């Protein structure tokens, strides 16, 4: 073997001697060429487009950014807020004038309830104000657990979870479940916090016409056809319907029974935002599900804030543990925010106590709503938008001037006229450029149980006068 190898080597050397000179030179050049190729820089396609440092400096020197914020004109309608002094309860002092409050969402009048205040005060004396931490890190107080239990019991669901800010509740809940690639069917009139939740989820959003079940079914059918094309993919796309119980923007109610039917027909989960209907609708104030007699377990998630009827701060979600518990690790507004000040949780518990002890309060509210709705009918130039049982109605212009700014000015004039006559009203405010479907300009009229017959009549009379005078 070894001698064989040696022989080959000898042969090679011999061949080298015998080879013609031109052949050796050629091979030598080729070898050098290969070495050059190996060590030369790789050819860059974009070499020409690279900027030199000097060019960069020039570009940097040249660049002029836009100002951080555009300037706001001094008379921007939303720049000068109305100033309230004193408690924002039934009697409210707006810009120095004492008025009857037809503007705060204090439906049940619990904001200045003595029992609530006393409980909050005793809680303050026990816990102080702040929680100094998120729920995970010693920000969970015994009152938070109690409130969650009470809310779950009140709503007759398995579990509830509280957030420290009403706005953040549904806005955090939606992206906790719906991710990129999932589909959300949502009503066009959905409120701003839902819109933000949708945006944060990065899912596909499909809007259906407000309260139009046929339109929703059309979208669901379209999706069904889409699914049949690619059943493998369809098996992992989660789908949700997001609706409000009572819409804050239109003051009407969602057709929940039909939605539940569609839910089972097309296997879509329902998320229901009840900030306007919790503590308002239903015999015991449980909201739209009770109003329609829908089994609450058929709704996958219900969220509401505790800032309207409950007159505290914060929000909650409730439903089955299978669904709700997930938010304790995935709800951004829950995990990464300081928890609700314990005194506000205590106030909410006491508000629930009152609501449970005296369900009659909801009937009273319903009667007042009907009364207000009726009293406002026939206001010249203004139309009442909303259901008779909705506690926050809208007054819109019957004939728009054609420009939103002018419409708002007219409505604002009516609000000012009423403020002068001790009726506190407010314009419904929107971010005009950010709303997906901007609602028409309107005056908000809020009903509370504290408003008396006479006050309601007086307010209606006042609005009528104002409309006559201003809208001509």
């Amino acid at each position, binding site marked *: 073997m070894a001698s064989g190898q040696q022989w080959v080597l000898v042969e090679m050397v011999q061949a080298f001697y015998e080879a013609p000179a031109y052949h050796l030179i050629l091979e030598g050049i080729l070898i050098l060429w290969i070495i050059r190729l190996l060590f030369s820089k790789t050819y860059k396609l974009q070499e020409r487009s690279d900027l030199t440092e000097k060019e960069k400096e020039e570009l940097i020197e040249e660049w002029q950014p836009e100002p951080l914020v555009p300037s706001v004109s001094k008379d921007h309608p939303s720049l000068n807020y109305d100033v*309230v002094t004193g408690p924002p309860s039934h009697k409210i002092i707006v810009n120095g004038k004492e008025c009857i409050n037809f503007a705060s969402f204090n439906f049940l009048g619990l904001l200045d309830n003595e029992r609530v205040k006393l409980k909050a005060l005793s809680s303050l004396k026990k816990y102080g104000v702040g929680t100094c931490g998120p729920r995970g890190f010693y920000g969970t107080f015994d009152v938070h657990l109690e409130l969650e239990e009470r809310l779950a019991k009140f709503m007759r669901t398995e579990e509830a979870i509280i957030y*420290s*800010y009403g706005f953040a509740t549904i806005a955090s809940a939606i992206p906790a479940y719906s991710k990129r690639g999932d589909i959300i069917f949502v009503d066009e009139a959905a*409120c701003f916090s839902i819109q933000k939740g949708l945006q944060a989820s990065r899912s596909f959003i499909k809007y259906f016409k407000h309260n139009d079940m046929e339109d929703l079914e059309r979208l669901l059918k379209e999706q069904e056809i889409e699914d049949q094309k690619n059943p493998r993919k369809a098996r992992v796309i989660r789908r949700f319907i997001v609706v409000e119980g009572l819409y804050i923007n239109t003051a009407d109610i969602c057709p929940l029974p039909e939605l539940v039917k569609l839910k089972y027909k097309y296997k879509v989960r329902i998320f229901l935002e009840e900030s306007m209907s919790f503590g308002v609708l239903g015999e015991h104030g449980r909201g739209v599900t009770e109003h329609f007699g829908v089994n609450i377990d058929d709704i996958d998630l219900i969220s509401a804030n505790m*800032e309207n009827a409950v007159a505290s701060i914060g929000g909650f979600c409730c439903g089955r543990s299978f669904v709700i518990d997930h938010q304790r690790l995935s709800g951004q507004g829950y995990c990464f925010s300081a928890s609700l000040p314990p005194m506000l949780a205590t106030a909410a518990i006491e508000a629930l106590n009152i609501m449970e002890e005296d369900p009659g309060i909801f009937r009273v509210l319903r009667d007042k709503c009907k009364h207000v709705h009726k009293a406002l009918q026939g206001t010249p130039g203004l139309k009442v938008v909303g259901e008779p049982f909705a506690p926050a109605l809208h007054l819109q212009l019957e004939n728009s001037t054609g420009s939103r700014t002018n419409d708002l000015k007219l409505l604002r004039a009516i609000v000012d006229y009423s403020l002068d006559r001790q009726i506190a009203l407010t314009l419904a405010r929107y971010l005009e450029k950010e709303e997906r479907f901007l609602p028409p300009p309107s005056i908000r009229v809020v009903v509370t149980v504290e408003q008396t017959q006479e006050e309601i009549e007086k307010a209606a009379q006042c609005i009528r006068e104002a409309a006559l005078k201003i809208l001509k």
Partner: protein
Amino acid sequence: MTESAGNKNEDCHAANGVKPGRNGMVKNHHHHHQYQKQEKVYNAACNGELYSRPFIESFEETPMLVAVLTYMGYGILTIFGYLRDFMREWKIEKCHIAREREEQKDFVPLYQDFENFYTRNLYMRIRDSWNRPICSVPGATFDLVERSSNDYNWTFEYTGRVVKDVINLGSYNYLGFAENTGACATAAGEATVKFGVGVASTRQEIGNLNRHEELEKLTASFLGVESAMAFGMGFATNSMNIPALAGKGCLILSDELNHASLVLGARLSGSTIRVFKHNNMQSLEKLLRDAIAHGQPRTHRPWKKILILVEGIYSMEGSIIRLPEVIALKKKYKAYLYLDEAHSIGALGRSGRGVVEYFGLDPKDVDVMMGTFTKSFGAAGGYIGGRKDLIDYLQSHSHSAIYAISMSLPVVEQIITSMKCIMGMDGTTIGRSRIQRLAENTVYFRRRLREMGFIIYGNNDSPVVPMMLYMPAKIGAFGREMLKRNIGVVVVGFPATPIIESRARFCISAAHTKEMLDRALDVISEVGDLLQLKYSRRKVLPSLDRPFDETTYEENEE
């Protein structure tokens, strides 16, 4: 900054111990001793112009052996997780997971199977270290509701007993304003009686009380800015206002360790987001240069504006932002700066005015001064301060002012009173002395821990003190052992930290007395020995245990 300055800074970074790699793989073993000696020299050399004080920040590398063991730990946990999932699947092991309703079994699953693997098999084992309910003021000490679990943390039972007087090293109560007595509580109590707790309307509609406006004026004067605005939730202050400041065609440069609220706000704004390395000015400058030179992707139009998002103190790292350098860069490249002072306001600076004062800078150089009232002020909510035109714009365009209920009045009073106390407007020196106390406590606590041989992350002056645990099993063990000895600590692991860098986090408060800290330190040392947590291989010479008197603090401040 010129090219050469950039290079100089690189040296400086190595010296300051900005982490060589996030995973902490050891790059250079025998650098440590030099490091110790040269730290200050480098600081003086390269920070001289921008920094008026030594900026000492350290992130000791993860020892190789520890890193390997930690990965092994996760490996074993994962194997066991699969094994137990398998047993659950075959009903050998009882399954505690909440189930989908029978009626909805044929729906698309709400959660992907693997999604909750970590929760089910790792988090659940040590779940008792979080969400511990308390039933008192979250002050220097607190009372915990005792709970126990008979099913390995799937459910908890409350035993009805209360664990009294646990030393609180977990709450963000930096200045000790979480109190149920004293001026703040009295003011909040009066507000409760007068106003009730709710407001039931938004700022733009009919929820704008004069007390809100007073709070805003006071905040502006505290921060040294023209105007300020307050919001009901700290998280929402970021997530609902960044979209008002930036939009399509804008670029947001965000620190990689920014809080979830900043990330969410940036995402909601619709801007392009680019992330720079934590507190790394080379990385930031490179992004700025490239961004301006190349413009927007594909269209190559110039950016409308560039917004840099940073935090004052990073709550998981304990690091302080290199603000002088950020401001220099921001000025050079005409970018805007959004500074989140959630943890630094009240906690840093001679008079508690945050990281801007700490570095002796001008608040006008920061375009958006954001912060929260949750921490140092013992309340809730957040603020944004800045030029008048900025605040005017936010008043008319902030999501929060239009769609969210305004702040609760008792909370407003708590903030006003505590802020006045910090500013000395209440005629006492309580505020001033608390700020000083916090600074002393911080330096003392950090020094002692380092001397004991723990690996401590972050800046010497940061009251957030992360102590490395690394191994997953030690997360739960540390939390439990500390609680056994009546000390409440926060432990954090993945996903809040990189997977191998699990840590405990102590938040120092002005309310802590020296005795409490000493007791806590003794216990930490004891548990540290028990769990073998003293990983540090740096030699720290124990200094004389002198009390930290005023002169030392002054010296530090100058």
